[in-house]
């Protein structure tokens, strides 16, 4: 058992949902209950395997790859099936394993129109495999394959189950991401060839780049390619415009997965691939990444203030929040990158929860127009409370998870890695801090307009407006608990990511000296 876990645990975890999807394929569409059960079981199996792995994980050595598996795959280009877990990927794998079963539970009564639970849940399962696979991959080709596997189910999810402008949104999403991936792939291949065509393994490539002495110029160019690929996924200003559309049009489940996990593929790519492999390129790019990040923070916040649609507002807030994550990464310090990882997890939980709420509000009120909402606390007090806590978490209130992604990133930009311009980053710090005010402004405004006050005439006696239902409880409460627990015990996450991140941070300390 133990050796199975050590050798095959990750593989089993990655492919368990896919197996579930294959089983579902054999079952006729009308047996919805069975489909839901299979989907839930396969995600829970994946989650259970993940939990066993996490129990078995040696946290004292969180900086090293564990449960590694490295097998022959595509020999002709030296691509190998290499997977593993370390302190950097563990939090994100855990996030994915945590959120997806909740999404499926939420789907129990909430299959969006035009129905077809079978196809819908199968897409979620395929997405699941793709997402975990991306986080555990240690080989660039494998990473790329998983990275792209994610794309198609999402495309269909938006395109089929989405809102009115779903086709436009899904195509925009697809085109944007594919555009970035193309550059990313070119960068990967160029990197492979420039380092002698020896390996696609990430750690090995990092060593090779050092030993081959790739010039800074080359590194900058390669980093640029990866930047486009990952930056669009994040999404960074000015590549963010796909996000509000995709989020607004996507079904609730799609929005939640998109916000909770998919966006993190981009940021994870930065800290797992682009920065460790190309440190000198990263140093050159960091100020620009920081600049785009803070523009994103302010821009996203201002965008939020102009929104009239709740879901779109939340979508814009993602731009701002991911700006903090990217700012943390851009500092290239242990503090900043730790904050970024925390920020990813926190944003995943919080924004995921916000999208869940938006979905449920939409279901009850049949609108998300902020002007028409109000008095949620009167009509559905429990839901109003969840909304209140979530917005507070989202605006970075200490004691809730959002804060630990935000403040350490601001702190870190006061003193970025050596070799980066301090003055520039301090300006970023001030701008980012101003962003926190704007964040509070739009989120509280949202809270005030939706939760406070009294319900408008049209909804006052609407029997459809009920308080939280059982599957909403089951799906939301665990997320809420995590938000609060992580808020008070940030060490839970920082201690996991710290070892790996500080090893990364030391590269830049050494580089600057």
């Amino acid at each position, binding site marked *: 058992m133990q050796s199975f876990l050590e050798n095959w645990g990750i593989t089993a975890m990655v492919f368990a949902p896919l197996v579930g999807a294959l089983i579902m394929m054999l079952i006729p569409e009308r047996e919805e209950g069975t489909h839901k059960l299979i989907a839930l079981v396969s995600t829970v199996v994946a989650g259970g395997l993940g939990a066993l792995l996490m129990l078995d994980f040696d946290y004292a050595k969180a900086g090293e790859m564990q449960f590694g598996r490295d097998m022959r795959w595509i020999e002709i280009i030296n691509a190998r099936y290499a997977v593993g877990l370390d302190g950097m990927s563990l939090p994100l794998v855990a996030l994915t394993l945590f959120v997806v079963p909740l999404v499926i539970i939420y789907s129990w009564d909430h299959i969006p129109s035009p129905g077809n639970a079978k196809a819908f849940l199968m897409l979620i399962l395929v997405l699941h495999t793709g997402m975990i696979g991306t986080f555990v991959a240690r080989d660039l080709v494998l990473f790329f394959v998983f990275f792209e596997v994610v794309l198609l189910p999402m495309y269909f999810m938006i395109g089929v189950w989405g809102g009115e402008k779903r086709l436009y949104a899904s195509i925009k999403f697809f085109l944007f991401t594919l555009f970035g991936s193309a550059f990313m792939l070119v960068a990967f291949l160029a990197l492979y060839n420039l380092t002698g065509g020896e390996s696609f393994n990430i750690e090995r490539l990092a060593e090779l780049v050092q030993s081959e002495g790739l010039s800074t110029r080359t590194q900058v160019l390669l980093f640029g390619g990866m930047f486009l690929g990952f930056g669009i996924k994040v999404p960074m200003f000015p590549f963010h415009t796909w996000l509000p559309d995709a989020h607004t049009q996507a079904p609730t489940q799609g929005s939640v997965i998109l916000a909770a996990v998919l966006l993190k593929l981009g940021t994870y790519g930065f800290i797992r691939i682009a920065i460790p492999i190309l440190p000198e390129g990263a140093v050159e790019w960091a100020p620009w990444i920081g600049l785009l990040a803070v523009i994103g923070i302010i821009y996203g916040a201002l965008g939020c203030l102009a929104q009239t649609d709740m879901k779109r507002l939340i979508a814009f807030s993602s731009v701002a929040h991911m700006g903090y994550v990217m700012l943390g990464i851009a500092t290239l310090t242990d503090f900043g990158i730790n904050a970024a990882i925390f920020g990813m997890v926190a944003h995943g939980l919080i924004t995921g929860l916000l999208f869940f709420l938006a979905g449920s509000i939409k279901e009850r009120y049949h609108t998300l127009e902020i002007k028409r909402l109000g008095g949620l606390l009167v009509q559905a007090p429990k839901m109003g409370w969840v909304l209140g806590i979530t917005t507070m978490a989202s605006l970075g*209130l200490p004691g809730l998870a959002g804060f630990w992604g935000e403040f350490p990133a601001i702190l870190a930009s006061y003193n970025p890695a050596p070799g980066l311009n301090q003055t520039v980053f301090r300006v970023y710090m001030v701008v980012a801090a101003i962003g926190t005010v704007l964040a509070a402004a739009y989120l509280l405004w949202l809270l005030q307009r939706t939760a406070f006050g009294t319900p408008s005439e049209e909804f006052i006696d609407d029997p459809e407006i009920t308080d939280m239902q059982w599957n909403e409880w089951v799906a939301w409460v665990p997320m809420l608990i995590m938000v609060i627990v992580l808020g008070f015990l940030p060490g839970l996450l920082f201690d996991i990511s710290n070892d790996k991140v500080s090893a990364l941070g030391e590269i830049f300390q050494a580089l600057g000296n």
Partner: protein
Amino acid sequence: MFAAEEVSWLFRNVWLIPALPALSFVLILFFGKRLPFKGAEIGIASVVVAFSLAVLTTFAWIGNIQSAESHSEEAIFLEGPDGEQTPIVLTAEEAGEARGAPIITEVEWFSIGPDANKVILGTEGNSDAGHDEDGHSDDEDEDGHSDDEDAGHDDDEEEGAGFGGDDNVVDVAFAEDGGTVAEAHGDRFSISIGTLVDGQSVMMLFVVTFISLLVHVYSTDYVKGDRRFTHYFAFLSLFTSAMLFMVLSTSTMQLIVGWELVGVCSFALIGHWWEEKANSDAALKAFLTNRVGDIGLLIGMSILYFAAGRTFSIPRINELAVNGTIPKGTLTIAAVCLMAAVMSKSGQFILHTWLPDAMAGPTPVSALIHAATMVVAGVYMIGRLYPVFFIGFGIAGSSINLMAFIGGLTTVGGGALAFVQKDIKKVLAYSTVSQLGYMVLALGMGAYTAGMFHLFTHAFFKACLFLGAGSVSHACHHSFDMKADMGGLRKYMPKTFWTFMIGSGALAGIPPLAGFWSKDEILVGAGVWPNTGGNGTYYLPFVFGMITAAMTAAYMARTIWLTFFGEYRGHDEPHESGARITTPLIILAGMAVVVGFLNMPSGFVKFFGAPEGLAHRFEDWVEPAGVSTFVTSDNGFTHAKPSLSLAIVATLLALTAGGAVVAYYRALYAKDSKATEYTDGVMSRIPGLRAGHKFLEEKYYLDHLYTGAIAGGTKGPLARATDWFNQNVLDGIVNGVGKLSVGLGNFIYNIIDQKAIDGVVNGSGNSASGAGQFLRGMQTGQVRQYATLMFGATAVVAAIFIFAV
């Protein structure tokens, strides 16, 4: 007073005090609605226990100080019962210096940075040299580090100093005594959470739990029958917990967390009646204004973090600020940033505008949060990081500095505004603004003890006043309008009247009430009155202080007159409030009488032949001491000498001002005691064309002119102008910025986002779609045609490859 073990236990487990209300919050939230008293009993019980512990801690602390003062040679604290755990080791080299040294109990919260394991291995067996010096004496070893490891721990932080970036490089001289640490780059920057017990925090523990308890009791009557009764008590508990958590901070990180948490409780409680938009607007305004200040807090704390060599520890930052390791320029920037946070939290000009609006919340909340405790958080933070501000603003040598200036401006501006309010709570709110300015003014003049003492006394009498206002409004059918619905209440509610009188007297600085002692000390602290010594030459702040002393008495006289004297102008019979409301009032009034005597000048004590030991007790108990703070005469931190003549002058000034106001209103209401229309100053009656009409009609126009010119002459235009400025310019800027950012947001969204950036995207989409339309024409559905095209294309492409490549 206590056995050493008990004292040690108390100081080590002081975390229980915030933990209890936190537990209560959770319990009320989950079970409150099912309980007979809807959760109020849990809240009260937890606060009672917390208060008892706080009282015990206070006495233990006092005992600690007293025994240190008696110069006993033996160690003040014994080791813990098991020899291994020595959580409390007083860093004292000499008992005299040990007086007031903070007692820190910390556990690691989380850590960021390279792993310390390798470093600890390197320092195994290293003596704990330098351990005593760096102030991190006391560390609760919960995670099983041995003492040696702890030593390594601290040393690591010093090594980390080298990391600090170019212009904040902390002198790494400390690392020398670290010995072996230098070779390994050990930078484990652990962020601790814990409790810091010293005079200042103990004082706040007492104040917060005391007032919280009274407010809890008061609220059971005041918000009786409210539909969110349970939530109300839950948030009261949460607030109490958060405030205590903040007060006990050992690290700036903890301080920030507590700071924001009290903010959110304030938000929730201001917006308690969120059905009305005005209330939720006020809540939003409070939160957002505080957020603006928080920018400064976050940045300032970041600067200090790196300047102190990557540590959040408050004693460590203070120590490095005192010994000059952190450059003065850095301290100045940090202090300016932190000042922004103080301005927002403690209602200083120009960020004070949220505080009067915050009166939209229930009155007990205003008493607890917006008068006695939360709003003094800014002042408390100045005290906590006093060396940073002291050196950063150059308080020792200057005649005016940013802190003193802001404090002075606030105290005068806030006081002037109190004159034009009809709403009794708004008067008190502006008065709070003014008094907070007083505290900041004191701290800005280096009069640390005076500032803290005023914080202490103000908490009692202002809470008393707010609760009194609540009682009045309870009687007058939930109105706060002094002019329309009050008057003559003296006869109907004597308990409320007398307690309100005592509170007002204390606020106005009438001897021997509490406010007199603290206010006097601040005026003395300016050091410009003959023979007072002090920090030097604060002429302008002194003038501000004197003006405020007069104004305070005047507006309180006006409030009392309008509320309690004359004839009742409301409808129905008012009635005295119940025991649960009046008892807290009486207790608070009692405190407002006695607490002033805690810090009597020694001259006064001698004059009355009281034992010398009674003099400046507060100063001894609260003022920080020990290595990690900075009581040395060479940085100008000396105590001013009290002056009897100044006390008399200030008191006379207050009495005169108050008397003049009373005279004015007597005359005003003598004509028609039931009138609800009277406006305040003379000038306010001139507007428009009615001026000429009034001039004829008003026979006593001259009288008005005289009284108006003397009593309210300046207060009319000045206060109106201030009010106008406040309402239009400052609020206008706030609203304008809000509007502007929404407009900018609209602009960006509509023009740039939707047109420019999306335009590019859609453009490419459109061109693809156009091409598609063209190609669509070719789709005849004829497989033959497709095949023809395919083979033809194959031929062409193959030809290209063959002939061209």
